[in-house]
């Protein structure tokens, strides 16, 4: 080890500056909290929260603890993110492919969609859907049924609920199908490597995933019935739907705007990815006698995915972080429930904001670590 003054001094200055700034902040925080009589600590998490949340995936009311309120918020954030990611991916892939279409109209239509939705602030879109578009929906008593079972009203979307009999059998059948598919894939690969024969894995997989659950209906005694929402009168002018699952308008507005907005970015990623695969690759693959399907599956997709996946994951992360805008329309997500209501009640600003930030940070960093690992795995192995 050779120490050089030139190397040490800049680092020392930087570290000292950082330490000083943090020390200053901590010192002030301590004095301020002493003056205001607030004590620092995370003990409040187990206290009774005594506030209610209007939409929750787990059982929750005022008698539960603040920690449970945190969980409610986190689950709601995850719910909206997952739905948003699924819709955004489907839409984004369709639009991204459409932007490469030789059809002039489709191409321009997709371009219009992308340019339109990504140049308007997300918050404005959320407000638009929530305060303007969804407010134009009919009242529950005037709502017309969509396909006879869905009701889209100003109070939210009512969908039928599944009522399962012997759900576990159905669940196991799906797991069995997945395991069977994995086994068959491994077997098919081995057969191809040893004997050069190809087994139609895709068709077999599709068959399995349908047939096994179907068998569970026929043999395993699995039954399914729907509980259709029914209009119920609460008072002379107040109606509500009972039964089924009700999705609040906040959730609808949020998922709609999040997925429409993020889909534009995903579409651009998909387009860039497909365009990034050289034309020569396709031609070379065709010239060695691969069928168009094989070209797509074995040559184009693996290379395109290598370009598409990292930025798309970034967009997923953005969507998750953007879901915090829920606070603006009172969808009870992590920010609203925890950094909003709980903070107001306890006054523990530092603890609560730090927990909230730490949660998002953990989410982001774990996804980026996963992505780095994936990137390394699929990166071109250069010799």
């Amino acid at each position: 080890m050779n120490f050089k003054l030139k190397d040490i001094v800049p680092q020392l200055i930087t570290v000292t500056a950082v330490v000083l700034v943090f020390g200053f902040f901590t010192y002030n925080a301590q004095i301020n909290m002493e003056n205001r009589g607030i004590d620092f600590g995370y003990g409040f998490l187990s206290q009774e929260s005594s506030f209610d949340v209007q939409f929750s995936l787990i059982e929750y009311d005022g008698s539960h603890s603040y920690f449970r309120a945190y969980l409610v918020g986190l689950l709601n954030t995850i719910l909206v993110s997952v739905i948003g990611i699924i819709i955004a991916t489907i839409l984004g892939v369709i639009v991204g492919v459409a932007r490469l279409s030789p059809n002039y109209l489709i191409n321009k239509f997709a371009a219009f969609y992308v340019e339109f939705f990504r140049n308007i602030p997300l918050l404005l879109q959320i407000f638009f859907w929530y305060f303007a578009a969804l407010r134009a929906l009919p009242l529950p008593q005037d709502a017309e049924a969509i396909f006879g079972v869905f009701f889209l009203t100003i109070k939210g979307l009512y969908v039928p609920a599944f009522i399962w009999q012997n759900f576990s059998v159905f669940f196991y059948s799906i797991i069995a199908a997945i395991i069977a598919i994995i086994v068959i894939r491994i077997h098919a690969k081995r057969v191809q490597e040893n004997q050069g024969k190809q087994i139609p894995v895709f068709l077999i997989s599709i068959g399995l995933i349908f047939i096994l659950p179907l068998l569970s209906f026929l043999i395993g005694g699995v039954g399914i019935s729907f509980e259709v929402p029914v209009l119920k009168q609460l008072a002379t002018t107040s109606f509500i739907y009972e039964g089924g699952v009700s999705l609040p308008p906040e959730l609808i507005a949020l998922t709609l705007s999040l997925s429409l907005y993020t889909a534009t970015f995903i579409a651009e990623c998909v387009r860039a990815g497909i365009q990034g695969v050289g034309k020569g690759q396709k031609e070379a693959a065709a010239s060695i006698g691969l069928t168009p399907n094989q070209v797509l599956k074995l040559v184009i997709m693996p290379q395109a995915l290598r370009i598409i996946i990292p930025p798309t994951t970034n967009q997923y992360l953005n969507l998750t972080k953007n879901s915090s805008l829920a606070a603006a329309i009172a969808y009870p997500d992590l920010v609203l429930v925890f950094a909003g209501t709980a903070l107001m009640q306890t006054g523990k600003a530092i603890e609560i904001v730090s927990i909230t930030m730490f949660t998002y940070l953990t989410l982001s960093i774990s996804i980026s670590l996963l992505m780095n690992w994936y990137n390394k795995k699929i990166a071109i192995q250069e010799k």
Partner: protein
Amino acid sequence: MMSKINFLRPDKNNLNTFLYLGSFLFLISVLDVFLNSFFSLNLTGFLPGFLSFLFPLILGFIGLYFIRIEFSGIKQLDLLNKHINTNNFNAVLSLLIIFVIIKSLPPILSWFVIDASFAGDTKDVCTGSGACWTYIKVWMRRFMYGMYPNAEQWRINLSFIALVLMGSVGYFATDRFKKYLTLYYVVIYPLIAFLFIFFFISGGPVFFDFSYGIIAAILSIILGFFIPAKYKFYYFLIVPLALYITLKYFIFFEEYIELGKLDGLNWVETGAWGGLSLTFIISFFCLIFCFPIGMAFALGRRSNFPLIRYISVGFIEFWRGVPLITVLFMSAVMFPMFLPEDFFIDKLVRAIIAISLFEAAYVAEVIRGGLQALPRGQYEAAKSLGMGYWKMHIFVILPQALKLVIPGIANTFLALVKDTPLIFVVGLLEIVGMLNLAKTNPKWLGFAMEGYVFAAIIFWIICYAMSKYSYNLEQKYKTDR
């Protein structure tokens, strides 16, 4: 010469037959939808419901099928086939898009223009089914300037006009001046702009700070011409600030001002600022601040000193990992706890600091991408010429790296502009916030749609113009390697 016609296989031999028949069917289908949507006439009303609905699609599909003849020799037909009619699937999609456009035009048009009300200045004129643009007209000042007093709004206007004039120097400067433009843009322009916007708009005693600033800037620029080129950089780094401080604390005493009976401008607290002008102010300052911070952290992340590198990585990953709304929450409720008790920072300034730090992390990552994309040879060549770290980065590395990342930086700035509405968290109301306030006004209930559409159009124009400008910039600075 008539050969046998096979309607399942349109061919070139019966080109005219197919062309006329196909075009006729296609036009009929478009006409049907057109009449249906514009004049609510239903040509196919006699058919049963479902069929009547699908009729134009089927008709148009057959029509397009007939005219799909390859190498017909007619230029327009070939172009049409190539662009919208390559196969059955594309034909259906094209038809659907045409129909959707025709179908959606009348309601959009009638809402925006035909049934909309423009005149008057009360809610009573808005009786039609269309948009109520009167609402926007009446609330225009609030949407543009927030709660800023009407009598003082010329200050905002003047500031922005002055800013645009100063900003456009770059376009009209001669080559002789262009040498100094970088310096101007990086040091002087932000300083003047800051004084102009912040002190001029807030007014009050600080108005004089603004005038000192202008005087200092002008004096130092004039003196600057007599300074040898070697010292110019240091000169512009030190002298304007020194002049400003001298003017403020040593020459123009407050009594002096009172003697001259100079009245300051009225103080307008930042809570009253708002509307679109606040969007611009916040975007502008965050843009100015986040760029140098981001650049510093990008360099820090690629530094050879491990401690600096770790600190930079920590900073960047922290800000990138959290949503902006929590950062603003932090600046609103947590940050005051970290300051000495008698020390107060205005909430607008706090918001600007928070957004700047947040966006700086994104800028840092973008610039790092540019730095990584440069070939090693550039670094080695610069070092072999005997350049030190700073000289190498300022003259060789950064100019090239920044050129490479223009699109990325433009995207970050676009994200910044689109993120400004979030400042509602700290209680500042820019245009979206003002809209939310206006729509709860009891006199003007029920016009949320108009407001949001109006704001959406404004934001769309700003963002689209920015993205087009960045594209032009990218093309302009493109260098072949």
